[in-house]
């Protein structure tokens, strides 16, 4: 008998995590996005510093209007500004456009600070460690367990190669798709976003096909 949680407990747990994060931070939960920003921390930090310089949107708008008036010799009153220094700017702009219809206050929403992304990843490790230790499943191993050994390979070199290639595909794929099982799968599907529904169906369907082809058929 499995010592893991029954399905309903898992469902409630995952749902509570997603709902709490969304409500408290007003942002979607996305582990691959957190990874991406931490991996590219130099660039993200630089963007954050640039962002902080323009925190006061009103002051920036007034400065732009003054500069425009000075340049063209007329008072335009122009204050339209697109704040999107981050690489993932297009969907954020789309988010902002949609949010503007619901709540003007949300237009000021910026990506979560870089440090919180690092804290999220470290906390996932600590949460996993607590779960493994308290459930008695923590064992230091130099392999990936009997499941991986039986289904994939028992050869250490092949194991390293499979894990590395799999990791590269996951890293590349999640960033190309714009999210992973938490971002698209839980948060995005929870909002019934078409892109997340498509992404989840495709990555889950692909994983099913690959699992059958590689480990069941071959």
């Amino acid at each position, binding site marked *: 008998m499995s010592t893991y949680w029954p399905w309903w407990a898992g469902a409630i*747990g995952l749902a509570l995590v997603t709902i709490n994060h969304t409500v408290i931070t007003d942002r979607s939960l996305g582990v691959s996005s957190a990874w991406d920003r931490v991996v590219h921390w130099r660039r993200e930090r630089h963007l954050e510093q640039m962002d902080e310089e323009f925190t006061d949107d009103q002051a920036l708008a007034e400065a732009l209007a003054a500069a425009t008036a000075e340049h063209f010799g007329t008072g335009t009153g122009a204050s339209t500004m697109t704040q999107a220094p981050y690489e993932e700017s297009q969907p954020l702009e*789309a988010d902002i456009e949609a949010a503007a219809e619901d709540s003007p206050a949300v237009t000021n929403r910026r990506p979560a600070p870089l440090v919180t992304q690092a804290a999220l990843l470290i906390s996932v490790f600590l949460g996993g460690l607590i779960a493994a230790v308290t459930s008695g499943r923590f064992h230091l191993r130099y392999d990936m367990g009997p499941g991986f050994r039986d289904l994939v390979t028992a050869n250490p070199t092949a194991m390293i190669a499979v894990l590395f290639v*799999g990791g590269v*595909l996951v890293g590349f794929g999640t960033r190309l798709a714009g999210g992973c099982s938490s971002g698209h799968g839980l948060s995005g599907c929870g909002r019934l976003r078409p892109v997340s529904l498509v992404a989840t169906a495709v990555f889950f369907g692909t994983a099913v096909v690959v699992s059958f082809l590689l480990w069941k058929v071959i």
Partner: protein
Amino acid sequence: MRTRGAILLASIITGLALGYTVTNIGFGDYAELNRMFTFQDLRMLLSFAGAVVIVVCAFALLRVRRTPGRIHAGVIPGAVLFGTGWAISGGCPAIPIIQIASGYLPALVSIIGVIVGMRLCRWANGRYFHLDRGSCGL
């Protein structure tokens, strides 16, 4: 606007709860994951699907704002690559972290792979593919 401190605290709580939950569901166990993908055991699949249903209902009740999230060019090829990587290595981005936390030391190789893949994606897409990569909106 949420303060930085509130977002940081929320992220820490989220991370702890997420790590604790996915470990106890069994997502770090390759055999359990394979049983889900080959439909031999629906427990984990129901956990995920059940969570989505609860989140949909909760977001509707709480009136969490809807975001359009158009289907961008990178979503299909990216999801195919991700699904393949998930099936063969057993780890989506959060899973290698909890695998290491459970004592599976080789999962460090998966993490290195994820980092290499993310850097490669940003470099290759910027240089060659120029696909819209979208974002789940974090």
